[in-house]
């Protein structure tokens, strides 16, 4: 256990990361049952579960400082209180090229973010980041595998271009140069966290539908 409470900025960053994973996992779950083919449906569903699992672990970490529990942080805040990057909020269901573009860009950005968190002074966060990094190895491999397969498709290249400013917004400004280097794109103005993407409010509404119907109930 750490001797002193972690700095507020670190807790904010954990919450933002958790929100990213939750909302991306939610968006990725929109493909469960309707992915391009059955084998991939199963694989992509594991990716979505991995993201929700990471969100849960991050919320639990934050709850240890802020109080409450992971579910309360995940579901009981107002939409304005979520700190996810607009990138993960975009609805790309139906568009596999865009979905894979996001998957690949996000995993690449996430590798940079997680690597930094493994150096955190907050021991629990550093430990969690290490665990996440191990699991992410499969996600990265999967994303790379698909990127290699779709690299020749125009619609994939277009999707990467369209999503690039959003992808940059996942990372702290200081880390974006590194992302640009790895992805091979020029660093542009990022779509920053703050204002939510269109559709986030209705996502939040659907996500919290059952929970809000009976506040405080155990499920």
């Amino acid at each position, binding site marked *: 256990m750490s001797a002193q409470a972690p700095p507020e900025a670190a807790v904010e960053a954990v919450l933002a990361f958790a929100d990213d994973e939750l909302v991306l996992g939610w968006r990725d779950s929109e493909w469960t049952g309707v992915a391009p083919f*059955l*084998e991939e449906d*199963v*694989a992509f569903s*594991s990716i979505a579960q991995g993201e929700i699992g990471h969100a849960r672990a991050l919320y639990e970490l934050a709850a240890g400082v802020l109080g409450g529990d992971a579910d309360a942080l995940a579901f009981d805040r107002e939409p304005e209180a979520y700190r996810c990057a607009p990138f993960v909020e975009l609805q790309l269901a139906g568009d596999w090229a865009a979905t894979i573009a996001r998957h690949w860009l996000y995993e690449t950005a996430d590798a940079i973010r997680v690597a930094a968190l493994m150096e955190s002074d907050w021991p629990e966060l550093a430990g969690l980041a290490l665990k996440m990094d191990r699991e992410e190895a499969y996600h990265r*491999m*999967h994303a790379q*595998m698909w990127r290699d*397969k779709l690299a020749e498709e125009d619609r994939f290249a277009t999707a990467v271009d369209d999503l690039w400013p959003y992808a940059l917004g996942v990372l702290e400004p200081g880390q974006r140069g590194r992302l640009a280097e790895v992805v091979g794109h020029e660093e542009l103005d990022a779509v920053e966290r703050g204002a939510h993407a269109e559709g986030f409010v209705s996502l939040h509404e659907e996500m919290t539908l059952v929970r809000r119907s009976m506040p405080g109930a155990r499920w």
Partner: protein
Amino acid sequence: MIWEVFRQEREGQPFQHGGSLEAPNREFAEAYAVEFYSRRAESVALWVVPREAISDIEEPYVADVFDRDYRRVDGYSLKVKLREARERAGTA
């Protein structure tokens, strides 16, 4: 492309056929094999083989024309000889 997956349930056990899946190449086939046969940690090891690499041998063994009883246990009758040997040795 169809790939066959063989799985080992526990260490030391034989690899058994688990099932088949469709994948464009070996990389995808391996990823899918893990998903299908190991996501609940139900296999400790997996093999993936293109279906076309497997030959289905229709007649596992040619029918006996010449007597090959030397390859089976029932091809040897030890009882009679053993009794004779014991009598000889006085240990019957």
